[in-house]
């Protein structure tokens, strides 16, 4: 019980600090908007072509915009050496990690759920026909992205070129998850529910999430207090 409470305290702290300034979330949202706009110049946004590549388009927007938020996660602790205070507090590394990951999850999901209807409007696509399945895919893939991203945010927080390093580390690891999310999203936006021919992707997403959550929770203490 104490563990859950600590996770929630850390999560609430991160969300409150972010919502005070809204720096990262504003940057992330504007960036999502700009990328959505740029894509409309890259090809003719007619309904048919857009539907076919909607998965790829959306997940590139989500991954880029998400990176801006994830970069801030541990960087937030850098000012005033706040990480010292968290590490010396009587909470486990796992609670600290999950709290921060959940805060990031909420923020990234918020940006995605604003970008998604904008995509529908800009590209004149009715994307809601498989609404709940689409939400499930977004929830699963975003968690994968957040869990590895939060871990790498901890790995890169003290190093040179922090902002560049996070996507360089995170995107290749995420390729399977993003690939699966893209395939499923394209199908769902086109109105096709998840069926036998693509439910392997869903299983892969779940496996990816479970695997990396477990490994992160197991290794985060090593990253925080190291050798």
């Amino acid at each position, binding site marked *: 019980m104490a563990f859950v409470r600590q996770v929630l305290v850390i999560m609430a702290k991160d969300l409150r600090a972010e919502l005070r300034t809204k720096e990262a979330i504003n940057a992330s949202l504007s960036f999502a908007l700009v990328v959505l706009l740029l894509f409309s110049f890259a090809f003719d946004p007619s309904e048919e072509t857009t539907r076919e590549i909607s998965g790829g388009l959306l997940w590139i927007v989500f991954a880029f915009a998400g990176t801006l938020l994830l970069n801030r996660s541990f960087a937030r602790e850098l000012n*005033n050496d706040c990480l010292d*205070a968290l590490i*010396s*507090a*009587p*909470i486990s590394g796992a609670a600290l990690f999950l709290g921060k990951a959940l805060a990031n999850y909420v923020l990234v999901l918020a940006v995605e759920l604003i970008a998604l209807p904008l995509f529908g409007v800009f590209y004149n696509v009715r994307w809601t026909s498989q609404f709940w399945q689409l939400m499930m895919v977004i929830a699963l893939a975003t968690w994968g992205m957040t869990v590895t991203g939060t871990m790498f945010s901890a790995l890169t927080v003290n190093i040179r070129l922090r902002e560049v390093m996070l996507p360089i580390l995170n995107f290749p690891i995420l390729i399977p998850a993003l690939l699966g999310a893209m395939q499923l999203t394209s199908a769902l936006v086109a109105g096709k529910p998840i069926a036998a021919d693509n439910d392997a992707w869903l299983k892969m997403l779940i496996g990816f999430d479970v695997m990396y959550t477990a490994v992160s929770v197991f290794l985060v203490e090593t990253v925080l*207090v190291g*050798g």
Partner: protein
Amino acid sequence: MNAVAVEDVWKFYGDFPALRNVSLSAAPGACLALIGRNGAGKTTLLRTIAGFSRPGKGKIAIFGNSPRDTATRRLMGFIGHGISVYDELSALENLMLFGKLYGLADPKKTALEWLERTGLDRVKDGLVREFSRGMRQRLAVARAFLHSPKVLLLDEPFTALDDRAIAVLQRLLHEALSEGKTIVMSTHQLREALELATHVALLNRGQVAFHGPRTAEMVADPGWVYARYGEG
């Protein structure tokens, strides 16, 4: 049992030993001042005692337990170089956050008490980023004392503090000692530190060059320890 016991501790950066076979101890109620030149390993030792990193070899015990144990961490308070409070949160929110993390019974009540003791009660809802330097430092002190730690670890506590914050900190440290708490601090401000210290340890290139009770000679001439043991 010693409040802080450091036994044959080595700490490596790669192959380079930043701490070499360091053994120190501090009994409950003692105040140990770690002195030494820059790069002698004071901060490394203090951070290792605080449990920020594990020693390469050797053992550190706080009342007999590892500093990484959750229960042990509840007994320790740390003030480092940064103030370790969040700019985007108010003074009260900051203290309540740490109060909750330390599992205090009534985080709000304790936080308000400490804001009063550090003279920040009138600005309790102000965001830390709007605070002056001195106010931020007093809040940092309140943050470290909030959970009434039994062992206080202070890294250069008097450096960069303004007069009022020094006064607050010194009053709190004297009070803590009189309550039988243990203090380990690294410092360059020999005069302030020696006044408070009951014991002194001099580090030289990662090794303990001297470890013993503070004597009258040291207070009379803060350079005495250095002159006697410094380059030995």
